[in-house]
């Protein structure tokens, strides 16, 4: 379909189970993600999609199962490690830093890459200043890319919902991730905005070569832009395959799509 080359498995989730008290959020879930692909996770509300992402980047600790990333297997992940390995994510419920400006929010995504010490920063010595500048330039590219130049200095709390989602994406992109986990990035957008967002995602995928894991409820988007789709329902995996396969899967139709889609 285009020039991207889907590579080997980069992230392999095996037999993950996660429960909270009585609630079983995930039961024995396994799936894998290949390098450079767009992998979607869909499923009805409360199926465990967000929980899955939370397990991958160490916010939740699954009770069972393991996660293999680039050949290394982890029982559970630690957020910092995950970030260092190049995994970034966006959040379903907007987890932006409310009191900070758009610019600072996105800059904070670069923090992992900034090495100057406390003292150097306090004095803004040559290297610290240069480092700040270098990263600022990178971030400005992202701001351009997401077309939020006008809001650079606005505190994110004041932005309308849709733009906040974009900033969330921007912050994740600033980490130059190899794997990008997106939790409903297009909720609360109209078609045009969704088109834009899709374009961003595909571009990130194409140009940066990032692997993308996407949760989304808009089937149009999912079916159009993803390579493979996992379907969860009540914490169980009920389908896995290309969009066309999934769309044809009767169980998926019953549990999620309904008939007409």
């Amino acid at each position, binding site marked *: 379909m285009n020039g991207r080359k889907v590579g080997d498995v980069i992230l392999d989730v095996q037999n993950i189970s996660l429960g909270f008290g009585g609630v079983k959020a995930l039961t024995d879930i396994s799936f894998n993600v290949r390098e450079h692909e767009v992998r979607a996770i869909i499923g009805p509300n409360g199926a465990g999609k967000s929980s899955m992402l*939370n397990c991958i980047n160490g*916010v939740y600790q699954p009770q069972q199962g393991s996660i293999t990333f680039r050949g290394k297997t982890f029982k559970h992940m630690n957020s910092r490690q995950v970030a260092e390995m190049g995994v970034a994510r966006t*959040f*379903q*419920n907007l*987890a932006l830093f409310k009191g900070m400006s758009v610019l600072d929010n996105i800059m904070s995504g670069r923090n992992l890459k900034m090495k100057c010490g406390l003292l150097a920063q306090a004095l803004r010595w040559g290297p610290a200043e240069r480092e700040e500048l270098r990263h600022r330039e990178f971030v400005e590219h992202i701001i351009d890319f997401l077309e939020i130049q006008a809001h650079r200095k606005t505190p994110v709390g004041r932005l309308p919902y849709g733009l906040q989602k974009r900033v969330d994406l921007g912050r994740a992109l600033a980490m130059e991730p190899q794997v990008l986990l997106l939790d409903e990035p297009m909720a609360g957008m109209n078609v045009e905005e969704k088109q834009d967002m899709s374009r961003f995602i595909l571009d990130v995928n194409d140009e940066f070569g990032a692997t993308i894991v996407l949760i989304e409820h808009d089937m149009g988007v999912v079916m159009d832009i993803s390579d493979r789709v996992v379907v969860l329902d009540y914490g169980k995996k009920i389908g896995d395959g290309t969009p066309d396969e999934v769309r044809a899967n009767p169980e998926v139709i019953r549990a999620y799509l309904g008939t007409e889609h």
Partner: protein
Amino acid sequence: MGFFLETLFGGLMAGMLYALVALGFVLIFKASGVFNFAQGAMVLFAALAMARFAEWIPQWLGFQSALLANLLAFVAAALCMVVVAWLVERLALRRLVNQEGITLLMATLGIANILDSAGQLLFGSATYKIDIGMPKDPMIVLENVFQGGLLLSKEDLYAAVLAAALVTMLTLFFQKTATGRALRAVADDHQAAQSVGIPLARIWVIVWSIGGFVALVAGVIWGSKLGVQYSISLVALKAFPVVILGGLTSVPGAILGGLIIGVGEKLSEIYLGPYLGGGIENWFAYVLALAVLLVRPQGLFGDKIIDRV
């Protein structure tokens, strides 16, 4: 052994009194998400009102009965607290809907300033007494079990019973009425509470009035112990570790917290103090609270702190 029991008992009694002040914090926090720094000032204001009305009312109306004077004064003071609650809502809280906790906290500091001074301007800044006939002399029990017997302070005992009764009443009120749920909703999210039609104004007046009432009871008890004067507002300092230990949102937590702090304080001062030069009970209370928080960050009974993405 006898002495240990005395200490323990003294701690429990003191703890009950702390709990009474702590209760005021908890109620207001639970119902509006405001950490009310003015609680101490409210105790002072209420106690001053009570003390002075008990003095003035017989003069105005020309009667002698101390009981009647106290009763009328109590009612008058309670009314004062309702007026305070109403003013606080009108002039401050109403305009601070949906602001962050820390902003509200500061506003209550401002209110504390106003109440402290207004109380003293209205009622005077000398020392006044509240005499509700609490027995001051000690009683000795179990003389045949321990040598010298166990010494109990009757005043403390009465106060503790009163406090316990109040606490039970309030617990029931909050659990059995539909208002309880609304109050908790307000604490979680002012705006959403408004959107479902919970009248913040009324809720706040109610809650602050109850807070004021609790402050009044605390003020009466402490005031009859210490005399009423500005310093009485400082008993609030004693309640901080209690509220936090018990959990900011829990009524039973305030009680249990109070008892734990009371006992911990006394035992530490008496058995540990001499090795450290004494005077340790104040910080020890906080260290105790801290130790508990390290295990349970939301206090003993507080609502779990929610973090989810």
